[in-house]
């Protein structure tokens, strides 16, 4: 690459050790810029051709006091010469910008891992704020780790001196120093970061150049310091990745874009009505920025108004979409019932978070599956889909709009706080090449009544206000099958209840059959998951297979209705293990639907599964079987 600043361009003093996969975590104070640092490192890794996956961990507070443990912000990057699907179980490198960052992140570090520390930040005051009684750099507590305690603050200040910044501004550059060091260590190109700094601080070039200087200084430090624990650095070769144009995306981005694209493929206006709530708000923010693309967003007074406005929009001929997290979806359930009985298209996105109630709003959980499938009064069936990766959010959003409009039904799209914030490289699709599914509104008055149905899909006619001759009234009261007028007739209610159920269960006839993500199509054990556990399960099953264990991974995207072959497929395995970030919800649905003795592997900590946790469960299970 021309003008590249990769250290490998300069002859290394020794040989770089080649590594297959590396996990680094950058951790520091909220004000230390760890999210940017991590993202830049990730980007530079993407550009050298590694596969990668990242995960940010923000503090719950808006702006916690400097130095406090609850104000620590972290960003984990997993980069690899292989295809990877998770941000990694345990970092092998922890960059800790202050004592609080060390304190709160050390437990996750790989035993024997490396800790890069800003020694200057280990002042008495900061140690106290982090509630250290002894300075961990001075007692034995870090024994066993490879500790690189560096004068990062001072070295940064020295590097940026020429630019005349205040002391506070100077110290703000120390994240770039740390990034430079890491870039040296893993042989990454600094140029994209330098370009980005110059663009970001275009109006304050002294800041831009100070940051560039800090970055370069950190890099140079690695190259020259001959650090005992470090050697000559590492290299991670490029992975085999499908060719094309890539970008890093979070699930919030892909989900928002998927909705906009889905509406376009349906030839409909997107009306997105929402009320802010963590971790769902970003979808609203992104779509609010798509005015030029004709997207209408509506920040409602609450979640109920949001879903009602979305339903009103669908009634009038848009695709109405609303989005929230569990507590907000709880408020929407009455209105969703109306959408079911009025048979209007609607997409409800639930970015699941830890509960019950307010719970731990910034942490992820998969505990709203019951709410999605069963959480309404009466027999109120709807479609439930789950996205399983940031990239998959895009496709699932499109599929939600396709099914909602084709079947005139609400679709609940489940994602979670982990998918919303985690990022991975995404092969950017060409929208023009995607299959369209344009909606045709009903316009023919002959024999029209609003609940006349398509023979095949059982979807009712979608006739929108403004259409002459099709004036009609709909509502939440039960209606006559044949005339759509209000009806209290007992047999009619039975029939309507059945037709609403059949319409939804019939969708099983068109959705793809359930596939096995990895492993044998029958055998002693299937690990069955849904949603954001995809990466962890897949990696665990791969690892188990490498150990010679016979285990399959099945990941369910269509949760209601489930693919037609599901029962038969699952029956082919002796044991079924269902890892979920909840107390056992999918597992109960499977047991009930297929009378199979599926067992749960449950984790309700607000943290995603580690690959290891699933692998151990697989080993135990198969060990017992042998």
């Amino acid at each position, binding site marked *: 690459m021309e003008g590249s600043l990769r250290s490998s361009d300069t002859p290394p003093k020794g040989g770089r050790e080649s590594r297959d996969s590396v996990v680094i975590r950058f951790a520091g104070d909220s004000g230390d810029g760890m999210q940017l640092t991590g993202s830049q490192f990730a980007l530079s890794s993407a550009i050298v051709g590694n596969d990668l996956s990242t995960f940010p961990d923000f503090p719950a507070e808006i702006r916690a006091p400097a130095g406090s443990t609850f104000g620590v912000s972290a960003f984990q990057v997993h980069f690899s010469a292989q295809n990877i699907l998770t941000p990694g179980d345990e970092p092998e490198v922890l960059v800790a910008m202050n004592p609080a960052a060390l304190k709160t992140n050390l437990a996750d570090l790989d035993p024997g891992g490396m800790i890069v520390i800003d020694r200057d930040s280990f002042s008495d005051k900061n140690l106290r704020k982090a509630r250290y009684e002894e300075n961990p750099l001075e007692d034995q507590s870090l024994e066993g780790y490879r500790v690189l305690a560096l004068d990062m603050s001072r070295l940064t200040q020295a590097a940026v001196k020429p630019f005349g910044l205040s002391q506070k501004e100077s110290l703000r550059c120390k994240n770039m120093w740390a990034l430079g060091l890491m870039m040296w260590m893993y042989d990454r190109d600094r140029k994209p970061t330098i370009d980005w700094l110059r663009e970001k601080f275009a109006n304050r070039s002294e800041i831009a150049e100070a940051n560039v200087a800090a970055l370069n200084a950190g890099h140079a430090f690695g190259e020259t310091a001959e650090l005992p624990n470090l050697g000559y650095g590492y290299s991670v070769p490029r992975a085999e990745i499908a060719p094309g144009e890539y970008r890093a995306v979070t699930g919030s981005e892909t989900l928002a874009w998927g909705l*906009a694209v889905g509406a376009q493929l349906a030839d409909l206006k997107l009306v997105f009505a929402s009320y802010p709530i963590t971790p769902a708000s970003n979808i609203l923010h992104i779509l609010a920025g798509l005015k030029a693309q004709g997207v209408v967003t509506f920040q409602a007074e609450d979640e109920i108004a949001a879903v009602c406005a979305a339903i009103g929009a669908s009634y*009038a001929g848009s695709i109405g979409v609303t989005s929230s997290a569990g507590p907000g979806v709880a408020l929407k359930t009455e209105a969703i019932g109306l959408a079911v009985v009025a048979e209007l298209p609607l997409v409800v996105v639930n970015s699941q978070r830890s509960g019950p109630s307010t719970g731990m709003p910034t942490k992820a959980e998969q505990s709203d599956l019951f709410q999605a499938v069963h959480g309404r009064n009466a027999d109120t069936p709807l479609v439930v889909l789950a996205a399983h990766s940031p990239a998959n959010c895009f496709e699932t959003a499109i599929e939600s709009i396709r099914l909602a409009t084709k079947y005139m039904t609400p679709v609940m799209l489940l994602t979670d706080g982990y998918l919303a914030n985690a990022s991975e490289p995404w092969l950017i699709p060409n929208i023009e090449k995607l299959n369209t599914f344009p909606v045709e509104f009903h316009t023919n008055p002959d024999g029209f009544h609003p609940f006349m149905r398509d023979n095949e899909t059982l979807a009712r006619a979608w006739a929108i206000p403004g259409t002459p001759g099709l004036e009609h009234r709909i509502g939440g009261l039960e209606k006559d099958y044949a005339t759509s007028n209000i009806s209290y007739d007992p047999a009619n209610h039975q029939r309507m209840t059945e037709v609403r159920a059949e319409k939804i269960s019939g969708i099983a006839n068109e959705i793809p059959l359930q596939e096995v993500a990895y492993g044998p199509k029958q055998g002693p054990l299937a690990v069955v998951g849904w949603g954001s556990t995809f990466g962890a399960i897949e990696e665990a099953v791969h690892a188990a297979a490498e150990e010679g264990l016979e285990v399959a991974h099945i990941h369910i995207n269509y949760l209601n209705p489930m693919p037609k072959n599901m029962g038969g497929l699952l029956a082919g395995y002796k044991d079924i293990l269902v890892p979920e970030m909840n107390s056992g919800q999918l597992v109960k649905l499977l047991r009930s639907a297929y009378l199979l003795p599926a067992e749960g592997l449950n984790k309700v900590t607000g943290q995603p599964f580690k690959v290891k946790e699933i692998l151990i469960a697989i080993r135990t299970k198969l060990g017992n079987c042998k």
Partner: protein
Amino acid sequence: MTVTTKIENLKPTDFASDQEVRWCPGCGDYAILKAVQRTLSEEGAQRENTVFVSGIGCSSRLPYYMSTYGFHTIHGRAPAFATGIKLTNPSLDVWVITGDGDGLSIGGNHLMHALRRNVNFQILLFNNETYGLTKGQYSPTSRPGTRSPSSPSGSIDFPFMPCVLALGAGANFVARGVDTAVKDLTETFKRARAFPGTAFVEIFQNCIVYNDKVFANFTDRDVSLDLQVVATHGMPLMFGAEKNRGLRFDPTRVQIEVVVIGENGVTKDDILVHDETNRTLAALLAAMEPPNHPMAIGVLYSNQVDTYESQVYGQIAAARNGGADLNDVIRRGHTWRVEG
């Protein structure tokens, strides 16, 4: 000589649906339905462009009786549905039908937010001071002491005054009418329909079953002239069987008072002239109550500002100039190529 083709207006009965009207015989809702149908007829409305959206309640049944589009939704949320409809298609003529329970109890918040946003639809609030459909419990507009199934010893809540509340929430059009005064009501509905923004109309509606004659204290024929003042823009606020009473503002006590022309030296010049663009005056009129003051009827306030949806589409139109398509959007920012 030019020939103009006059499109015949639909008749009021053309706006009636084929469904049997199922309100109690003698219910005030019938008259309001009639006024609505007349309004549409006289204003040359088209059925296909007209949408009635309602919540739940006796009043909220109205959409079924119209031959237009209609959506009988859930309790209290009609303004939110109507907002979604207007965001999709601003050219539709949308009417929200609600009651004192639907609109002020469970649905109070949506009503207030619609009013402050100024989405262009009409809200007709049928105030019968009771929950008719659920059999007569007291409502947020019931007067203190109302005995009902849920308040056998008399209600103790202080009631809302719907028009006062609407003005407090920032409504830009506020009017009042009486169910039986179909002609006046029709004129008020026309004004509401013509208003670009959220037009709020409170209608005193008699529930013959659970709250009969609750408004008789100012609607009965023998008192109505003395206890109603019809607000007309630019006209002095005069009323009374002998047309000699008027409203005057007392600036020291900062309150409105009823005076009689000719008494205590009061002349016509002392009488307040109605200015429907004056929010302060509207609030004063809305807050008056019999027997000390007459009930103010008609358009109390009308003040034109941008509608919500015009601003939504204004921002979209502005952004579209030179806007990128979605294929560009998903390529914005840092991207990289992996070569094959």
